[in-house]
């Protein structure tokens, strides 16, 4: 490729040569060629001059120190997610509770995938979940009974929710959809968005 008196190295190879990105053998071959080829040596010198221009480019001075704003921004961002973390912890706890209550459904779903049509399995699982919930009902009743009378009266006047157990599936699905939408809104922090960067980084307008 680069024997003295032979073919000149491709121009791109001179770039790679100057970048020290060739293997030792190729690097040596170009070295030898350059020693005997004024044309390639001149091309290399031109390229070296360009490299020097770039590498000698002076730094531009920073006109204001950044550390104060950086630390303020870090503290501000650290402060806000604490509320998010609490919200997420609450959601996780509720999610864990749902998982416990839905354990039969999960086990059925995993073990009896082919034994029952999906619709029937869902209906049975929902029924199981509410069966478990009903175990909590005596405790709820007892707690409510211990509340002051005006509040109990007010609660007792609330209309009953007009669903039977088999209709709770769609209700749960809607709740899940709301949950997911809520989470996506919650986690889309305004402190991360590009549009708010100016204000998040010290409020300097542009």
């Amino acid at each position: 490729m680069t024997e003295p008196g032979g073919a000149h190295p491709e121009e791109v190879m001179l770039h790679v040569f100057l970048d020290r990105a060739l293997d030792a053998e190729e690097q040596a071959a170009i070295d030898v060629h350059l020693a005997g080829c004024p044309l390639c040596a001149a091309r290399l010198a031109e390229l070296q001059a360009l490299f020097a221009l770039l590498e000698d480019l002076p730094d531009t001075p920073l006109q204001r120190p950044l550390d104060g704003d950086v630390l303020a921004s870090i503290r501000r961002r650290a402060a806000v997610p604490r509320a998010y973390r609490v919200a997420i912890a609450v959601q996780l706890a509720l999610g864990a509770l749902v998982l416990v209550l839905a354990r039969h459904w999960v086990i059925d779903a995993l073990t009896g995938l082919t034994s029952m049509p999906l619709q029937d399995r869902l209906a049975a699982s929902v029924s199981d979940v509410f069966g478990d919930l009903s175990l909590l009902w005596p405790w709820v009743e007892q707690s409510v009974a211990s509340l002051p009378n005006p509040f109990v009266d007010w609660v007792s006047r609330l209309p009953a929710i007009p669903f039977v157990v088999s209709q709770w599936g769609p209700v749960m699905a809607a709740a899940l959809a709301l949950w997911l939408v809520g989470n996506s809104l919650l986690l889309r922090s305004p402190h991360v968005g590009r549009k708010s960067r100016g204000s998040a980084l010290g409020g300097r307008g542009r």
Partner: protein
Amino acid sequence: MQDSSDRALVVKTRDGEVEAYGELVRRYQSSVFNVCYRLLGERREAEDLAQESFVRGYQRLETFDVERPFGPWIRRLAANLCLNQLRRPGQNRLPLDEEHDELREGGLADPETAEEERQSSERVREALMTLPPRYRAVIELRHFQDLTYQEISSTLSLPLSDVRSHLFRARKMLARRLRPDD
């Protein structure tokens, strides 16, 4: 604080001493700002992105290998942030602030030489800003951050062959734009 090594400052920061990170910012703010300025060409935006780079650096400090130098890591992070910014639609502009090269004034005895150098630097900066962002990026990483082809490839998620060809084309474009008769 001033005498602490970067490594010690990173460890302190990880232990919750945010002030230690402030010292790291003071040490590297100029070089990080210059990465952003060379890539973006606009001072205010470069300052914002430099600041954001340090904030992101703080958030990702757990992923930083303390056995490696902090400077190249934060500069690479800044370069990536600027590239993402340049990739946004409508961001391939050619701004160049007027005020950037007052730095040499006072630093050289001969005002004529200083002026020549200032003009030369300005031409180089202007030529850099005319490059497409992906070419500007490889020039930044190779010439100013001294990354190898392999490191550029992993930083920019580009195949090695593209790194080589991008560098080649970028330098050809620069050379054309910097010719004295242009």
